Every structure is written in C-alpha cells, then in structure tokens.
C-alpha cells in the first residue's frame, strides 16, 4: 500500500507526511517548527477522522484484507476531498494556535491552498476559532458516516463494491453538497450548537470562544460542552443532508456496526490487527487520544528511504568507536529489517541484536555498518578505551529470555530504553508501581533541524526511557504520562549531570543512524 494513490499525502517542498490506515509517516526537516507541527497535525487529523467514522472503518478493513487493494483505492478516492480539506484546515489552525502568526504556511504546499480556501469558505459564517474547527469536524464526520458498513455486511466483505452505495452516501459527494451551500450550511449548524450549549451548559465555554484564541476555549473543563456542541452541529448537518435521501449514522452510531463488521472479518480472515472504534469516554480522555495517535506515528530521520546497511565482519572495534562515547544499539531483528536496506541474502540473528554502528565505505557506497555483539561478554570489551552507553529498544525487553541473559551486563553502563512500542505497554505498570517518575524534555538543534526528546526514569535514574521525535510527539507523550501518573509525574528542565553526556551521545547517534522512530515495533508495520 505504498503507492501514491493508496494514501493521503501532505506533499510539498518542505517537511512531508502521508497517511494510510496502517498509520502515518512524517519526514520533518526540523527547520521550521510551525510547518513541522502542521504536517504532523495534518496526519493526526486523517487518523482521527478514520478512527471515528463508518467510512474510516471500511478503509481500515480494506487496507488490511488480503487481495482488496482495488476496493480500498476506490473507497479512498471517494473521500479524498473530505479528508484533505478537513486535515489541511484543522492542521493549519492548530499550528497557528501554537505558534502565533504563521504567515503563508502553505507556501511549500501549493496544492493544498484550494482545499484550505474551500474550508475557510465553509466555516466563514461560524463565530469562534474552536467552533470553526468543530463545525468542520462535524461536517467531515457527517460525510464519512454513510451506511457503508451496512452495505458491506449486506453484500459480504469480498463481494462489496463501491457501486453498492448511492452517490449521495459517499463522502466527497456530500462534501461537495455542503460546499455548494456554503457558508449557510455550517453557519446554521453552528447556531444549533450554540443553542445546545445555552440550553444545557452555563455560558463559560461559549464565552471562551469569542476570538481566535484556541487556548482559552479548549481547556479541559469545556470538553463536555464542546462535545455536545459538535453533536448538535452534526445532527443539524445530517438532518439537512437527509433531504437528498442520504442516510447517516448518529455521531456514535457507527460503533455497533463497526463491531459487527470486525467480528465478521475476524471470522472470515482471522486477526488482521483491526481495532474497535474509540468509545466516547476514550475520545474525551486526552491520555487515550495521545496513546492512539502515538501508536500510529512514524518519524522518518533518513529522508525518503531507509539507510543502506550491512553487517560488518568481526573486527577490532576501536576504529568504530573513536574518542567519544561508544553507543551499543540493541533492536529486534524485525525492527532492524524495517529500519535499514540490507543487501539481499543478509541473515540477521533472531531475537534482539546488539551492535555498534558506523558509516563505512563499501566499494564507493556509504553504508551503515553494524558490528554485531553476539553475546553479553562482548560488551565490556568496548568499554576500553571509550565509555559505553546502551540504547536498547523497548520491544527487545519483551523477550524475557534475552533480557535475563543480557540485563546484568547492560546495567554496568548507562542504559537508555528507546521507546518503540505503544506507551500503553509499559506506563500502566509504572502507574501501578506507585513511585514517582521523573521526566526531562530536551530540544536538540543540529544541522538536521530541531528535534525533541523526552527522557523518563521510573526508578530514580537507573534506566532512562527515551522518546524521540518532534515537540508534538513529546507533548503527546507528556500528556499521556500526566493522564496516567497524575502528580506522580515530576518534571525538570535539564538532565542530571551524571547522565547528560551519555544521553546526548545516544540521541546524537540515533539522529544520525536510525532511519525512523515509531511506536509500533511490536505488532505494527515491521512484521
């Protein structure tokens, strides 16, 4: 599913992103934070729209069903306009809210100016920055909430074709219908939302959304009010659309059909890695949303393609280490296979693989050489003359046999656990443990741009868990930790002196040699 037609892209001359129902990849240059933020949020919006609608469920299903590429592409073609217009406008406004005046942020993305202008026309009759976002979200959700799951269940997942659905029940036809009636359609929906808030809530949420400031209007205490507002706007839009004969689920009405379809798919095809639709409680829970987004993001650090890599023959490690800290990287074999382009015929050891990395000249081509350390007793050898830092990915720790054999040796050095799995896999254990967790956010500026990292230790500094990405990723991770740990999450502005050199060596090495970072190493796209 890597071809251009099978994904939703934010493609321009600066940072880029693309989304498929398997997740999203972003290549952030780090040169312009507002642009990076917009690119990131653009892909997040695609995720969110698919995760909470019937059409999104269908995309998730056909993206994974064997032999269903043509149906998937037909479904995607039928919702590109809705998806891109919604994602473009929302991401631009969210970037503006965070960074202030963003000027011509779409300069490098000329193809997105028309969708952005369309969205502005749609919401031009809506008051308040937050309500404009919510009104557009309500419209996009109405467009994506046609009776597609019922059609699939009726025809059977394999026999279903786009022709089974009326044109008026397809997202982009609906979107064009609303656009044709802009700005009145969304303005009326917004008034319905305002009426709901005046009837059922006090005026604080409405009053907080008077101008362009999203910060004041989106504080957590207003979440329920805005959810009710969007639901009222949604109901209004679905109501006026019904005049065309269009059928639309209630805003949460796709959940039972989604569960029915997933059960049918599971029965016929086994586990395809599909998830149930998010519940209302999950949508309100910032930690759940952060976790859902985190498990779908991938930051590319090597540009369009993974680095070429090779296994180095057994050799003296000194030339690889140099004067600085020697970083021993440990990744699962599946992850290594996904991270790099290996020469054909390369056989990596099974299970977690420990290696020193260095770019080497291989017959004129620069490749990332891996000197594999087969057993724990090879590790102390690299301690001389350089100090050693260990960067072991979290997915490796799931292999308990390997961990038993290696852990004691690793702990002789500073250990950093690179977070490459969903935080749901380890943070709840920290929450149950009852200890404080110390978190330190740092910004890294180098010739490659600006990156961000979050280092956490749940054990007083023995092991540091490292999340690497951009400021949005770090913000989401912090949000997630705060949600689960509450006041037991302690933050400080800088790393303890004793760990600083090793941490910077690990981060620098990662930025230079890791092709991408993501949170799906277990059960994700690597397999």
């Amino acid at each position, binding site marked *: 599913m890597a071809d*251009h*037609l099978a994904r939703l*892209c934010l493609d321009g001359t600066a940072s880029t992103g693309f989304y498929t129902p398997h997740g999203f990849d972003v290549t952030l240059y780090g040169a312009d934070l507002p642009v990076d933020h917009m690119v990131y949020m653009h892909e997040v919006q695609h995720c969110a729209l698919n995760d909470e609608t019937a059409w999104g469920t269908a995309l998730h299903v056909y993206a994974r069903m064997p032999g269903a590429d043509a149906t998937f592409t*037909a479904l995607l*073609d039928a919702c*590109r*306009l809705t998806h*891109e217009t919604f994602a473009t406008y929302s991401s631009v406004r969210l970037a503006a809210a965070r960074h202030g005046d963003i000027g011509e942020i779409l300069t490098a993305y*000329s*193809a*997105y*100016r*028309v*969708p952005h202008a*369309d969205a502005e026309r749609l919401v031009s009759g809506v008051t308040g920055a937050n309500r404009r976002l919510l009104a557009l979200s309500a419209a996009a959700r109405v467009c994506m909430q046609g009776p597609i799951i019922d059609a699939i269940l009726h025809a059977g997942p394999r026999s279903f*074709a*786009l*022709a*089974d*659905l*009326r*044109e*008026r029940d397809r997202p*982009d*036809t609906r979107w*064009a*219908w609303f*656009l*044709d009636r802009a700005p009145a359609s969304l303005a009326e929906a917004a008034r319905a939302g305002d009426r709901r808030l005046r009837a059922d809530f006090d005026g604080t949420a409405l009053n907080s959304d008077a101008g362009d400031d999203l910060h004041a209007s989106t504080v957590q205490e207003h979440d329920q009010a805005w959810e009710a507002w969007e639901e009222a706007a949604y109901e209004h839009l679905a109501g006026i659309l019904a005049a*065309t004969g269009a059928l639309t689920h209630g805003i949460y009405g796709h959940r039972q059909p989604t569960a029915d379809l997933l059960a049918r798919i599971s029965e016929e095809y086994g586990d395809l890695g599909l998830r149930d639709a998010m519940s209302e409680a999950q949508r309100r829970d910032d930690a759940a949303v952060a976790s859902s987004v985190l498990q779908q993001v991938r930051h590319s650090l090597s540009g369009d393609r993974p680095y070429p890599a090779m296994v180095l023959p057994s050799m003296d490690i000194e030339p690889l280490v140099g004067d600085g800290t020697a970083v021993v990287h440990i990744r699962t074999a599946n992850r290594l296979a996904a991270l790099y382009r290996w020469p054909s015929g390369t056989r990596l050891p099974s299970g977690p693989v420990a290696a020193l990395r260095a770019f080497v000249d291989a017959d004129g081509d620069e490749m990332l050489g891996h000197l594999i350390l087969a057993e724990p007793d090879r590790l102390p050898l690299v301690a001389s003359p350089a100090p050693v830092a260990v960067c072991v990915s979290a997915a490796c720790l799931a292999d308990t046999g390997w961990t038993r054999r290696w852990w004691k040796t690793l702990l002789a050095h500073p250990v950093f656990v690179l977070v490459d799995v969903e935080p749901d896999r380890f943070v709840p254990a920290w929450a149950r443990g009852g200890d404080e967790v110390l978190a330190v956010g740092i910004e890294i500026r180098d010739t490659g741009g600006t990156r961000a990292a979050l280092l956490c230790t749940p054990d007083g500094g023995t092991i540091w868990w490292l999340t690497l990405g951009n400021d949005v990723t770090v913000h989401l991770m912090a949000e997630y930790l705060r949600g689960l740990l509450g006041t037991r999450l302690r933050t400080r502005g800088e790393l303890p002196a004793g760990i600083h050199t090793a941490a910077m060596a690990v981060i620098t090495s990662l930025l230079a040699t890791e092709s991408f970072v993501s949170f799906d190493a277990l059960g994700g796209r690597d397999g």
Partner: protein
Amino acid sequence: MADDLDAILAHAGLDGTELRREQTGALARAVSRKPEEEFITPVVAAPGTGWDDGQQRPRDYLEVHTGRWHIDLRDPANRRHLVLVTVAAVLVDALNLTERTGWVVPVLPAVVDVLAVRVVPGGLHVELALLADPQVPADLATVVNALDFADLVAAVHRAGPTVAIPVGGTVTFSGSTTR
C-alpha cells in the same frame, strides 16, 4: 471547420491551443453556477492532459490544484472530452442533479448523444438525443450505483423538450435513438 468545442470556447471568450487552470475556471463559470473545482476536476481527467514537469501524474484530487497541467486543444480526444465535461456540467446545473459533474461525465455517453453545441444570443444551445435502453457501462459496473444511473436516466427523460441553462442558453432533448 468549427466544431462544438469552438463554440464552447468562443462562448467563454477563450482561444489558443491549450487550456490551463485559469482558462478552465473561466470555462466553468461560463457554463454553470456550480463551484469551478467541480468542473476542473473532471477536465484534468482528459486523456491527453500534460504535466509541466513531464511526469505522468496519478488521478489525485490535489494534483488538480497545483495548476501545473495543461490540455492540448489540438488533440481530438481532448476536444471530445471537454465537450462532454461541458455538457455534463450544464446538465447538473440545469436539471438540478445531486450528482457531481465528475460522476456524470463517464456515464453520460451511455445516456445521450451530443448532437450539437452552438453559441446563441445569451449563452449556449446544446442539442442532445436520448439513447434508448441506457445501461451502466460495463467498465463502471463496480463504481456506478445502478439506482443512481437510473435516476439520471429518469431525470434526463423527464426533462425537456427544452430546458433553460441557468447561466444562459438552452438544452433540447430529442427522442430516443438506438446506437
């Protein structure tokens, strides 16, 4: 010899040997009240659309809006396609169809024959012949809903014999013919 497209271009005040985004927008405004993007998108699906960077582009909505494409008006296939898009846009607006122009374009040849398009005072005059026993084209059977197609056929057969084009001009429908 002047043909249907010459009449359409003249009506929109256009000449030259190629059509770009700006001219296509002008053409859209001359024949329909709908948003011009609805017209431009199927235009770019013309068989001979050229891309300024020399690459063949995929059929992706967003590529349409870069404006980095052009349509060679000397190519007969492109000319036929542009006439078809124009007639589809005219019908969507004149008959107040729910379907978009891009949906109507590929099915229209299964519903009507375009007999002539000419400039008349105040707009265009489009002459269409209804086809007998229209069927969903086989290559569109997995995409086009049979009831939507039936609705289009019914709308076209209900209309006429003369319908006003909202931005100016008329459409006439003549009796069913078998192709």
